[in-house]
């Protein structure tokens, strides 16, 4: 198996099937929908049965990867599904990274959706090709197609054991009609040979030798390197700029102003002043030398500490009910005992290891009208790049050619293409390719931040210690404010990530939201509102267990109640748009991962650890997958926390690449460790107070969990999310463990704000 880089593939190539490499696809939309024609470059005879797959006469199988590779292995995993169904030899597969093109379907590599959305589609692509090859061989041999089976890059006539290689069938296969998906026979799971089996990712050798090309590495001939001075406060703008000193810096070529977004921030640039130079360093030096007078705009008094207090006041008052079951008010009054707690999670920044970067080449005619635009970007969503750049340049979205490089991680940041628009408008202005690099300071200071939140939970408990009523109020600035400045309270898709989808079996439940205005760009960060909402819910469950004097695990299982499915319709839950037939909210599965994680962690035996050591447990359903976490902590007499062990059990349905899933589960624990220990962006006068890894700290090897034990449950359920699924329950499990070890209940993150000396 080998790969080609997207940067060598232009849109014209994509359309005409004439790429310098061997991308041989052509599709045209007809009234019947998407149909595929076998357009073939003269030099290469190929068979193109599906948008995602083509086979050349030498037997090379080209498979299109249309999702972005940011560390999940998706660029390998989806083509593996095609290859499995096609019965292709993996060593003869070439992976082609797609440009942005909506005919390929959703390309937004975000929301833990890739396998869920495209598992079937990839199987259909592979099965289409295989079926046509089988049919071609059958006609050649004059036998029934039902006696012919694609097997390991050949069609075999099962009766006579005659064989013919895929490449030798290409010329004739091209003449056949493409079968309808409904008529295809997909391989049964028992015959899968790649799905569920591990293989090194396609880019492994390039990564290990420094040849892998990320957005920051992408180069166009004659390009300039740009960095931008952006308004320190969102919504600010340039009053005046003196570029003399910047232009005097050796290597600086040009200084160019770019306008701010109009209306809501959306995915358009923050605006500011770009310094373009012959190296990134010269551009950075030039930016230092700029003299800019800013109009700070309407958010210049944003103070996140004060704002957090306001949120606290908001959740102390009744809010807008978004889920109502029974009568919480009466039950709270009637309860034998009540308990309440407020939780806080601050703003967070994505800080992907590679900062946002893109290079653009925009061509204009003599009137200044844009005639073409090619962008190479580390983007999670090339179609969003088209949609943002098209209007900014006054061209049709589909004419914007977006090549997708590898991403040095994304976590949601790189699904927002403001940096691509910056590169495009600069290239138009300077009539040269321009490469925009965000410095780490830019990245942390000007992020689409994770929101800031307060959550109030209140419960009444009965004689048995279990809650009879659960009231939960959430308040945080909404992501929707990115698009609509008036959006001023949590949106339903946000509530549904750990608030309105409360899984516990409690007769009286009320979930309320409270208003919160946005003063910075709010974006989605890996696992999104699950971060704060599951922190609150899973911590509060543990508080109730302590109150009841019960074992935390046993209590949690009782709280989850009988095996059943949540009535998503009655609860008005969208289930992320997934059908409840394929993806029910299955409490049995949630209990199962919880039970299993208790088993593998030795919960029972370790329950009574000495002071200074403790176990914590939490579970959740997120992105349609189920996770149970047990975290073990050791807290020194000085209050230093170490994490010797983490156990995670994940049920994500069918898993295509187990080792890559395992890696993401490990990574989620480490990312959540960073966030729980240190994660905090604060604002004073609208300006972020953190701007690099010295002030926005990350867990390193020394303070990350020492051992992470992962178990993936075998399942034939429909594939669920993975990347974000195992983030949410880590932080509450960690804090529950800290409580067990120290008697200190952490309700406000991050941990480094607290003295954790055991009581």
């Amino acid at each position, binding site marked *: 198996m080998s790969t080609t880089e997207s940067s060598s593939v232009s849109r014209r190539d994509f359309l005409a099937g004439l790429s310098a490499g061997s991308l041989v696809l052509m599709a045209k939309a007809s009234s019947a929908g998407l149909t595929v024609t076998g357009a073939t470059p003269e030099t290469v005879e190929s068979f193109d049965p599906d948008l995602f797959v083509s086979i050349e006469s030498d037997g090379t199988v080209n498979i299109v990867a249309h999702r972005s590779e940011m560390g999940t292995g998706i660029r390998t995993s989806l083509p593996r599904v095609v290859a499995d169904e096609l019965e292709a030899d993996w060593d003869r597969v070439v992976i082609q990274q797609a440009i942005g093109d909506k005919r390929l379907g959703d390309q937004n590599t975000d929301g833990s959706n890739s396998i869920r959305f495209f598992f079937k589609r990839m199987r259909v692509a592979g099965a289409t090709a295989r079926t046509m090859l089988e049919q071609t061989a059958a006609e050649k041999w004059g036998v029934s197609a039902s006696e012919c089976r694609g097997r390991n890059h050949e069609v075999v006539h099962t009766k006579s054991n005659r064989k013919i290689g895929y490449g030798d069938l290409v010329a004739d296969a091209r003449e056949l009609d493409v079968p309808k998906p409904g008529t295809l026979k997909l391989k049964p799971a028992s015959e899968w040979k790649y799905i569920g089996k*591990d293989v090194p990712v396609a880019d492994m050798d390039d990564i290990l030798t420094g040849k892998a090309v990320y957005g920051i590495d992408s180069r166009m001939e004659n390009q300039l390197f740009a960095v931008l001075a952006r308004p320190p406060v969102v919504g600010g703008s340039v009053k005046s700029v003196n570029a003399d000193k910047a232009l005097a810096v050796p290597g600086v070529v040009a200084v160019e102003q770019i306008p701010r977004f109009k209306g809501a921030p959306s995915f358009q640039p923050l605006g500011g002043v770009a310094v373009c130079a012959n*190296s990134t360093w010269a551009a950075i030096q030039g930016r230092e030398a700029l003299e800019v007078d800013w109009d700070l705009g309407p958010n210049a008094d944003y103070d996140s500490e004060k704002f957090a207090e306001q949120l606290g006041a908001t959740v102390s008052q009744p809010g807008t009910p978004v889920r109502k079951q029974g009568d919480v008010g009466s039950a709270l009054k009637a309860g034998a005992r009540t308990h309440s707690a407020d939780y806080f999670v601050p703003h967070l920044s994505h800080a992907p290891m590679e900062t946002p970067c893109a290079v653009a080449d925009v061509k204009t005619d003599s009137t200044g009208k844009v005639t073409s635009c090619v962008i190479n970007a580390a983007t999670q969503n090339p179609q969003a790049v088209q949609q943002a750049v098209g209007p900014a340049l006054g061209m049709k979205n589909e004419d914007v050619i977006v090549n997708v490089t590898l991403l040095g991680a994304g976590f949601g940041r790189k699904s927002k293409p403001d940096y691509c628009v910056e590169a495009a408008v600069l290239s138009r202005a300077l009539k040269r390719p321009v490469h925009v690099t965000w410095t780490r300071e830019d990245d942390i200071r000007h992020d689409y931040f994770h929101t800031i939140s307060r959550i109030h939970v209140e419960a009444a408990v009965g004689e048995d210690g279990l809650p009879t009523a659960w009231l939960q109020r959430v308040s945080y600035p909404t992501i929707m404010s990115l698009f609509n400045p008036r959006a001023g309270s949590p949106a339903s898709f946000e509530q549904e990530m750990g608030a309105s989808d409360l899984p516990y079996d409690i007769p009286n439940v009320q979930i309320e939201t409270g208003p919160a205005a946005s003063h910075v760009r709010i974006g989605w960060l890996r696992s999104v509102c699950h971060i704060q909402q599951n922190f609150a819910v899973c911590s509060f469950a543990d508080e109730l267990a302590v109150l009841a004097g019960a074992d935390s695990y046993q209590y949690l299982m009782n709280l989850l109640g009988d095996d059943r499915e949540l009535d998503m319709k009655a609860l008005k839950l969208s289930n992320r748009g997934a059908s409840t037939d394929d993806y029910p909210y299955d409490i049995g599965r949630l209990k199962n991962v919880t039970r299993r994680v208790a088993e593998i962690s030795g919960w029972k035996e370790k329950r009574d650890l000495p002071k200074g050591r403790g176990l914590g447990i939490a579970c959740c359903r997120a992105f349609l997958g189920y996770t149970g976490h047990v975290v073990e902590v050791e807290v020194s007499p000085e209050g230093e926390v170490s994490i010797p062990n983490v156990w995670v059990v994940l049920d994500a349905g069918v898993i295509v690449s187990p080792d890559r899933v395992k890696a993401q589960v490990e990574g989620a624990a480490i*990312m959540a460790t960073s966030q729980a220990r240190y994660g905090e962006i604060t604002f004073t006068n609208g300006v972020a107070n953190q701007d690099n890894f010295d002030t926005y700290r990350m867990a390193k090897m020394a303070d990350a969990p020492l051992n992470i034990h992962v178990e993936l449950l075998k399942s034939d359920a429909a594939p669920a999310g993975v990347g974000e699924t195992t983030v949410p329950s880590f932080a509450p499990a960690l804090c529950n463990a800290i409580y067990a070890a120290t008697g200190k209940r952490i309700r406000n993150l991050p941990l480094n704000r607290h003295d954790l000396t055991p009581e």
Partner: protein
Amino acid sequence: MNTITVNGRQHSVEGVPEDTPLLWVLRDHLGMTGTKYGCGVSECGACTVHLDGESVQSCVTALSEVGEGNVTTIEGLSEDGTHPVQKAWKEHNVPQCGYCQVGQMMMASAMLKKNQNPSDSEIDEEMWNICRCGTYNRIRAAIKTAATEMRNK
């Protein structure tokens, strides 16, 4: 300065200001993009290279400090990707996005040159690189595998 030595070869750096960090000289002037930018302030280790065999952070190493020294980057760590560290990284499937891994491998290979039997706490001490994808546990395992190979050579 007119030339620097990278991976055993002389490269012209004529006209490059002497205060330019080696990172950007490598990436932008010499077109060797294997060495990565992560923070620019010696906090993440993504830009780690070897200068005369010792690990240094190229983002805070000015061109003038390189002088006559021999710089080794990922492109020169081995001819064909078979340094024990590279092999161990592959064996343990260490990379996720891969972006930090160049710096991780350069840091690890410099450490292993000096200490072919590092303890967990020595690894913790030396390997202060940031990996946002969270590959630390596999890096630790891969270092031990590479160390074993290097000891047995």
